[in-house]
């Protein structure tokens, strides 16, 4: 799309674009290119020279059981976070959409958790679930459930899921609410007159009409769970206990910082890159096709 009426000139626009292009090239394209390049190289043990090895790094990574565990963790984590954050948000959005007194106050109070950093959210939930000083942690132990997320992998996973989802519900809530409010009221009234009770109205009319929003949020939630939740894991469990909560992004960080195998680390980054690009591409295509009913 472009405008019909424009200014003439080449120098000025290029000058205006220069800052963004410069940063993009230096900090996006160059590193991305470097990652791709590094992923097909293998360094010798002393880091002195590198050798082109094609896709061998990728093969090794995909076959590595540690990587597979991390991939599995990431899958569980993302699906749980996305699923719980979206269903809770949808439910609350449906309630908030009904015209009751104080609806705006409720909305304000449900939106602000978005502003909390994932890492800070993790810390807050840590305060609650710490086995010795946390309100819920102590209560669980007192009730006979052995609760210590520093020792129990499944409990650690549960905790990071809660902390990550807690924050994301606000984001989903805002979008679901907007989606609900974009459904013409008269369509719902027509359904009511046709004989549909509220539950049936929701599943046969509201939910289908909400599907562009739902799909969009699914993609965003998955990307969030994959990447933005690094802070949650780092602050809460450090990937532990025993790698039980190590996700793919966490693994990349840990190994990259330890700087042992650049090729492998780069290969892992590239795999993640491919995943994000695929998700974004799918999102754009789907939204383009089904933007209007």
């Amino acid at each position, binding site marked *: 799309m472009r405008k019909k009426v424009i200014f003439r000139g080449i120098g000025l626009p290029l000058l205006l674009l220069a800052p963004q292009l410069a940063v993009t090239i230096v900090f996006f394209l160059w590193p991305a290119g470097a990652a791709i390049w590094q992923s097909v190289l293998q360094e010798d043990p002393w880091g002195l020279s590198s050798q082109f090895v094609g896709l061998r790094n990728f093969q090794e990574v995909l076959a590595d059981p540690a990587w597979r565990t991390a991939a599995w963790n990431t899958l569980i984590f993302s699906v749980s976070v996305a699923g719980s954050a979206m269903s809770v948000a949808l439910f609350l959005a449906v309630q908030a959409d009904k015209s009751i007194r104080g609806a705006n106050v409720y909305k304000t109070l449900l939106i602000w958790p978005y502003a909390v950093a994932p890492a800070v959210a993790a810390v807050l939930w840590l305060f609650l679930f710490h086995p010795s000083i946390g309100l819920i942690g102590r209560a669980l132990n007192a009730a006979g459930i052995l609760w210590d997320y520093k020792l129990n992998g499944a409990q650690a996973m549960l905790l990071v899921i809660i902390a990550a989802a807690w924050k994301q519900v606000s984001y989903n809530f805002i979008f679901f609410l907007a989606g609900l409010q974009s459904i*013409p009221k008269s369509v719902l*009234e*027509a359904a009511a*007159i046709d*004989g549909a009770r509220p539950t049936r109205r929701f599943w046969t009319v509201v939910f289908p*009409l909400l599907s562009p929003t739902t799909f969009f949020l699914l993609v965003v939630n998955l990307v969030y769970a994959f990447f933005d939740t690094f802070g949650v894991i780092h602050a809460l469990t450090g990937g532990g206990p025993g790698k039980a909560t190590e996700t793919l992004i966490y693994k990349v960080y840990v190994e990259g910082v330890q700087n042992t195998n650049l090729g492998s680390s780069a290969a892992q980054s590239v795999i993640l890159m491919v995943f994000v690009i695929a998700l974004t591409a799918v999102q754009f295509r789907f939204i383009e096709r089904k933007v209007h*009913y």
Partner: protein
Amino acid sequence: MATLELSGIRKSFGATKVLHGIDLTVPDGEMIVIVGASGCGKSTLLRIVAGLEAPTEGTVRIGGREVTALEPADRDIAMVFQNYALYPHMTVAQNMAYGLKIRGLPKAEIARRVGETAELLGISALLDRRPRQLSGGQRQRVAMGRAIVREPKLFLFDEPLSNLDAKLRVQMRAEIRRLQRRLGVTSLFVTHDQTEAMTLGDRLVVMHAGHAAQVATPMEVWARPADTYVAGFIGSPAMNFLEGRLAEGGHAVALRAGPVLRFADGPRPGPEGRRLTIGIRPEHVVRDGENGLDLALDLVEPLGSETVLHGRLPGGEALTAKLLGAAPAAGGSLKVAIPPAELHIFDAETGRRLDPRD
């Protein structure tokens, strides 16, 4: 098929009173049109009948059942919306079948009804399309089809023709009338367009500021409007209103413009000099070369077979006349007369019609 009875319907939104006590009885099979300007409360009234709003006071009875507290789904009604309100994600056939599926009708029955109704409305070829692929007129027909298949006790129409272009509107108007007569379902039709009201309704309810100003047949509303609002609302160009005072012991009116006109149908009550508003429709003003009033012409609109003249009478009051044939140009003047037989007499303060004393 059933009657509709509204008793004492009042509605307030917070402190704002929107309906001030509406009573209405609609017999079986009648098409009753609620007409009025924006904000008069007509849509609110319709929504109360539908169950989409609850009245602050009053009762709604459909087919003898008291439905005031019941939800729309339990009232056995169908509604056609102004913006059609079709389910965007369903095909035309699914749109029409939705209500029937909910009521648990067997598939064969649903298919039969949908097929017959589509045939009736001429939309059989569209059954597999989605609303976004249809034109405005087609969508309107699907909306009506959705209402018809339900075979309800009452049809509700909420300004269904307002979103259509002028030509289509005239066409659909005739179709709705035909269909309603054929199906014989009691119908409530809301519109702001007085032409639609006049052509569609068996009876009209003219609404003004939350009150039902008059409930009568179209001809009655046109020939004997109950107050100045109704008189000015129905008929185009609008009725002229002139000031006058009761004279000759109640048998005549002395117009501010000059002449004294004797009533053709009897004296009106009230003291001598009582202030009156006199109504005369533009099409009833006649030329009177000898004894007429001087109408100074401001604007002349030649329409071919007729001419509409806007001018001023002696004394300054405006008068619009619709005369056959040609007329002099603006800036000139014409002698006109006001036939007493066509006068509408209203009280100047209340605006209510004054009928003969005896």
